[in-house]
Structures are given as C-alpha cells and as structure tokens.
C-alpha cells in the first residue's frame, strides 16, 4: 500500500528492484536509445531489431539482431509474421536477458514488422521469466496507411494478451499537441519522447525516494494479469500557480481526450515529482483535483522529490481503462477467429492465431460474451482510439440529450460575440443559469 516512510525496511535484506527495458523494432530502438540519453541511463536496456542498422545507433544499450538467416539483417519488410518468427528464434537469448528482472518495459512502435511481430513474443518471454511485463507502444499515424494501422491493431491485441499492461500512444494524437510546422523527424522524436515519459513516470514512481512511495508489489497487484490498455499523459508547470496549472495542463492533454479517459479509468497511477519545495499540501491539492476527475477508479499516488526541479512540478499519470468484456482471450475461439479475420484484411492468417496457442487461457473465467464479428471489430477499434471522431460525436450527442432540455434563445445577443465569464455565458438570463423557477 502507500508508504509514508520512504524506506519501508522490514528487517530483511532489501533486494533492489531490477528494472529492464527492451526496445523492439525501429521505433522501439530509437525510443530506448533516447531514454538512455536521458535520466534513465542507469537502467539495463536491450534493443532488438531485424535490421542491422541499429548497430549504428549510438547508445549504451545491448544490441541484438533478430532473424539471422531469415532476414540477413535487412528487416522484415513490414511483415509481423517474420518479426515473430525472428524473435522466437532468439528465445533463449531473450530469456537470458529477462532473467532476474522484476519489471520489464517493452517499448515498441506497432504497425511495422519487427515491433508488431516480436513485441508480443518478448512480452510473453518477459512474463514467463517472472517479471511484470509493461508494454509502452506507439500506434502509427493515419498517414502511414491502412495496412500498418490494421497490423498495429492486431499487434496491440496480441500484446495485450501477452503483457500485463499496455500503455498506448496513438501517434495521430500528436497532431493535436504539435503545431503544423513541425518537421517530420521532430514529430517522431516527440513520439519517442512521450514513450520515454511513460517509462520514466513509472520508473520514478518506483525508484525515487519520495514523500509517498509506491511499492512495486502494489503496482504488480494492480497491473498483473489485468491485460489492460492504458493511456498516459504528463504535464509540467512552474511558478506560483503550478499546483493548479499542472492539473489543468494534464487534463488539457489530447491524450486524455478532455479528461474522459480519467472518468472511465479503473486505475490511475499518479506520479508526482517536485522540487525540495514540494509540500504535502501541494500533493493534497493535486490529488484533490484529480480525485474529482476520477469518478470510478482508484488513484494510486507516488510523490517524489527531484532536487533539480525547484519551483516545478511534473505530473505523470497512467490511466487504465477497464477492458471491455471482450478481452481478446475471452472472445470465444470461433468468434475470435472471425473477428481477427475481419480485421486482418490482407494479412496472413497464422500470425493471428498465434496468441491463442502461446497464451494459456486458464486465468480467464466466466462465460464468453456473444458478440457479432462486426460488433467486436467496432469495439476493438474504439478501444484503439481509431474511431475517435465517431466516439466524440456520440459523447456529444448524449450530453445534449441530457442537458439541453430547453433551448435558451439568446434573443438580441444571438449574433453578437458571447460574453463568457469564467465559463458562464452571461448572455443567458441569470435566472435560468441559477435554476430559479418562476411560478
């Protein structure tokens, strides 16, 4: 549980927490290389790719070329099946790396061959070795084409059933963060940066001595075998009003879909890093604001001190959405097949069958819900954040039904600029806004 004591010494010899990072594929390798250049340099890391170009990457991480004779170090050509097979070839080497770790981050970009195919394998091996497998993945931009999008969807599905938890970063949402003039390389760098933030948030929460420590075992109990899909967002604020601002900025993050993610979340991990001037009152205020947003789920807080962050607060949250009833493994075999086939389009079949073979189904109980393939696909897509627009639309429509029972005409001010004061439209009669009933 939450420990107020920074060092919960129980008298036993303390085993330091072993965290490892594995970067899979091109995007994953780049992201991990970036992490090692930042303050995460102390973490042992391994990067895997089927393309020998990663050898040129200037990084401290161990490098491993997958595929061998299969690909001759030339990549998979965007085929996840080759990526998967290549990773399975190196199973023993991967197992060796995973040995002894308590927590393994699997960082990958989905949509291509290696990341999509190999990441689920790596996640499974990591889990088999007894570690907690947390995947941090980027989903492709829309402009990368529908094939990659579909592959990424299937990859995510596989990864979710293999890893304990998956943190998703839909790259498409980056467009809402970055301005239009951003060059391509910076856009990808921003994507890597976000993955780094996701890893860092959890890493700091677990390792930094803080005001409030989060036990690894607690994290484990929250994510272990949940196979959830999570979103993360982080924000930083400085100055006088930082306590209020940091939460506002966080909520404003497009990754949280205007705070809707928080409302729907079942578990929210909050990692709060501040300077030595961070007070418990600040922590309290921030949690208070977040608590109001998180209606359903539980909040897990980690607050830590970083001496370099004087006058600054960095807030990272990881919000897990409850998986809808149809977790991949809960889908009955026949409908699951058809559903993945419905998604797969032009991608070969064996790849999709793989997770069922590789993953034991025993840990899931309960009757499988009957869903039609169309329904399944729709839900999966929604879960992926792919049909964002339609979902937003639906949410809007629902709101309208609930609130705008009476359309208040603004009469004379219909066409003039509305007078908005602290979010209230002052053109609407006061008695209506106050809910005063005449008669």
């Amino acid at each position, binding site marked *: 549980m939450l420990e107020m004591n920074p060092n919960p010494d129980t008298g036993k010899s303390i085993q330091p927490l072993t965290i490892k990072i594995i970067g899979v594929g091109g995007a994953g390798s780049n992201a991990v290389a970036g992490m090692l250049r930042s303050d995460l340099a102390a973490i042992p890391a391994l990067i895997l790719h089927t393309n020998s170009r990663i050898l040129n990457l200037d990084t401290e991480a161990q490098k491993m070329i997958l595929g061998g004779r299969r690909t001759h170090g030339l990549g998979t050509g965007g085929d996840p099946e080759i990526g998967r097979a290549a990773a399975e070839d190196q199973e023993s080497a991967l197992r060796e790396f995973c040995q002894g770790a308590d927590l393994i981050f699997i960082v990958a970009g989905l949509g291509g061959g290696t990341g999509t195919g190999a990441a689920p394998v790596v996640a499974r091996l990591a889990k088999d070795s007894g570690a907690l497998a947390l995947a941090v993945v980027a989903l492709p931009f829309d402009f990368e084409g529908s094939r990659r999008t579909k592959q990424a969807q299937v990859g995510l599905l596989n990864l979710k059933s293999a890893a304990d938890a998956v943190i998703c970063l839909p790259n498409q949402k980056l467009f809402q963060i970055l301005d239009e003039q951003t060059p391509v390389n910076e856009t990808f760098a921003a994507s890597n940066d976000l993955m780094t933030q996701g890893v860092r948030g959890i890493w700091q929460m677990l390792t930094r001595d803080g005001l409030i420590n989060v036990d690894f075992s607690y994290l484990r109990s929250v994510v272990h075998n949940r196979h959830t899909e999570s979103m993360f967002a982080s924000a930083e604020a400085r100055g006088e009003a930082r306590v209020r601002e940091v939460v506002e900025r966080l909520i404003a993050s497009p990754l949280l879909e205007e705070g809707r993610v928080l409302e729907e979340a079942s578990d929210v991990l909050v990692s709060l890093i501040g300077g030595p001037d961070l007070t418990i009152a600040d922590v309290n205020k921030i949690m208070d604001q977040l608590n109001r947003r998180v209606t359903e789920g539980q909040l897990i807080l980690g607050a830590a001190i970083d001496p370099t962050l004087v006058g600054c607060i960095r807030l990272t949250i990881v919000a897990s959405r409850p998986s809808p009833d149809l977790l991949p493994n809960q889908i009955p075999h026949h409908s699951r097949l058809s559903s993945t086939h419905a998604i797969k389009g032009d991608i070969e079949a064996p790849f999709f069958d793989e997770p069922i073979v590789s993953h034991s189904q025993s840990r899931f109980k309960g009757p499988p819900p009957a869903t039609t393939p169309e329904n399944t696909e729709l839900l999966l897509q929604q879960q992926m954040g792919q049909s964002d627009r339609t979902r937003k639309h639906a949410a809007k429509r629902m709101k309208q039904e609930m609130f705008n029972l009476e359309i*208040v005409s603004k009469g004379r001010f219909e066409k*003039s600029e509305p*007078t908005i004061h602290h979010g209230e439209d002052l053109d609407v*009669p006061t008695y209506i806004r106050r809910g*005063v009933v005449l*008669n």
Partner: protein
Amino acid sequence: MFEITPIVVGLDIGTSKVCAVVGEFNDSGGLNIVGVGQAKSRGVRKGEVVDATLAGEDIRNAIVEAEQMADIEIRSVYLGVTGGHIRGFNNRGFHPVVSHDREITDDDVQDVIKNARAINLPAENKVLHVIRQHFLVDGQDGIVNPVGMLGARVEVDVHVVHGNFNRLQNPIRAIKNLQLEIDDVVFCGLASSLALLNNHQKEMGSLVIDIGAGTTEYAVYSNGIIKHTGVIAVGGDHLSNDLAYGLKVPLGRAEQLKIDHGSALVEPEIKGHTITLTNDVGIAEKTINLEHLRRIMSLRLAEIFQLIATELDQSDLLNYVREGVFLTGGCSRIAGIQTLANQVFHLPVSIGKTNSISGLKSALDQPEFATAIGLARFGSFEMRKRSQEKPGLQTTISQTFKQIFGRA
C-alpha cells in the same frame, strides 16, 4: 495658424444612444457644459460598433444637435470607447539610478515610466492608458514625485488599460468618415469616474459603476489614484432580453416594462400583483406577474454587482473603498438599485452626481450623460496641460505626427 475656440467635446457612442457634450472654459478656467446632443443608437451592441453605417448616421445626428444647442461648430471630439475586450491591470516598472550622486532626475522618471509601459501584450492589443499611480524609491512606497530624492532604484506603479486594436478602430473609423478629428481616445469607465468624483472622494476611496445599456464599466480610486478598472459586457440590454425571454413578450415591450415597472428589489408585498398589457386599441392582451419581472431583474443586477465584487475582492480592493459606491449610467435609474448594491458590497451606495462641473442643469442631472461629460472633462484637463506647455512649433509638429501615427 487659425484660432481654435477653447471648447472640448466628449462623444460617447453607447449601445442605446449616442451622446455628444460640448464644454467651454469659463472665466475661472473651469468647465462649463453649453450643449448636449443625443441620438438613438442603432449600430452598437455591447458597447461596440457592429454596423458602421448606422452608427455613423447616429453620431452625425448627435453631433449636429449638440452644435445647434451650443451654437458652435465641432471639429474634434474626445471619443469614449468600451467593450468586453478592454482590460485594466497594474504593472510596475523599475529603473536603476545611474548618476554618481544618486539623485533622481527628471530623465530617470521618464525612463522608469517608459519601462512600466513596456508590457508584454499580444500583438493585436493596443494600450489605451498608462496611468501613473505612485513611485517607489529603494522600496519606499507612496512617493508622489521622486525628482530630487536620493536613491539607487526608482520604481513606478502604473495602471494600464488596453484593448483589441481592431475593435478599437471601429468607432474611430466611423468618426473619421464624418470628417471629424479625434483629440484622444478614452476608456469610458475612466471618463465616468472623472465626471462623478471630486478629489475628496478619490482620496477617500470610491468605486464607480457605470451600468449602461450594453456594458458595465467600473473604476476604483483610492488615495487619489486609480487602483483598478474593468468592463463587463453586460448591461441594460441584458435586463430587457431576460425579461423578453422570461415573460415571453417582445423585446420592445420588455424594454418598456423595465422602465415602467422595473425594480432591483423583490419586495414581499408585490406578491401576486399583476400587470395587464393592452394592445394598441386598449384591449387587454396578457397579464404578467410583477414578482417574476422583478425577480428576473433583481437576479441579473445582483449578478453584475457580484461579478464586480468578486473581481475586486481578489485584489482586496473593496477594503480601500471607504467613501462608497457611486452608480451611474442608464441602469442607475432603476428603483431600488442602491439597496441592492448595498446588499452586495456592504458599502454606502449613492447615485453619482456630476457636481463639480457647472452648466446645463438638465444635462448634469442625468446619469446617462455621465460618460460624455467625463470625456469633456478629460479633454479640459488635456487642453489645460497643453496650454501650459505653450506649444512651440516643434511640439505642434510632434503632436501632429503622434496623431497621425498613433491612431492612423
């Protein structure tokens, strides 16, 4: 150069009416109001011009009426501007004194004011006023004139009023199209407070609230200086609109109901009273519950006061207001508004009177004219300042340039 008659004209382009006030210097150097012209305003919403053609016509009508009454020809005006985009805030500028004997010179004062003016505003915003509040020398507060004092660091607090450049241009262009010159552009809230308050009231601390048809402006004075100004784009029009909506009557009817039966208070004894509306030929058409009418108005007015009170409370300014609250503008005619304001502010409330200016009694008594009178008063101060400066050729040229480039 030709002789310029020593008159000042204040022009207030309001939401319900355009009003021009002509002032003349009397023998003792004070301002004497000699003419008033007004016209119904049709091209203005919430204090801002939305139809330049209609606004132009209305301005012309008001000016012509004022010219006839005062029997003069108006060439230039002091223009009042308002609107929800105008903001006021306090800023501090500082300047190190570099002279070896540490004596603060006039140049230092000019520099520190220049520094205080350098504000980080969005490009589309324009500063309307930079009003000097007081100086600080080495942290010592409350200095009125630091010239000649010794110190290492001189600071100045200023109150800055700024607004959106393009939106400020709309009334200016409407006037330029009428071949009139603009002497200066003045924020209406500032003008009304100039018209109402005497030095004693400014010294003691006063809050002026000008509730017009489209906007409500407010200004706080304390220790003789402006502490805060602001605008809320809510006014009498909103009252009428609320009534039209709530009582389900046409807007014109609502306007008339507001004037005939309106009050800021809901007294218990009016419960159950009704008003019967008749049509043109006198046949009863509809009955309206008086209590509803009053409640709608009361809520809206209380909200306006509440917004101002909240705003001022944030900077703890209400404690400085010792003299009281002065209401003006068309809405200050509403019955019971003093009591309502008193309930919100817990301060003595009175309807502002333009006491310190002589002239046409009919104009001075009306709260609607306060802004225009204040504009004329502002003009008289400016003009006196200029005449004291004795404009040589150089200043005339520089002023001309300033007029061309400052507001072109």
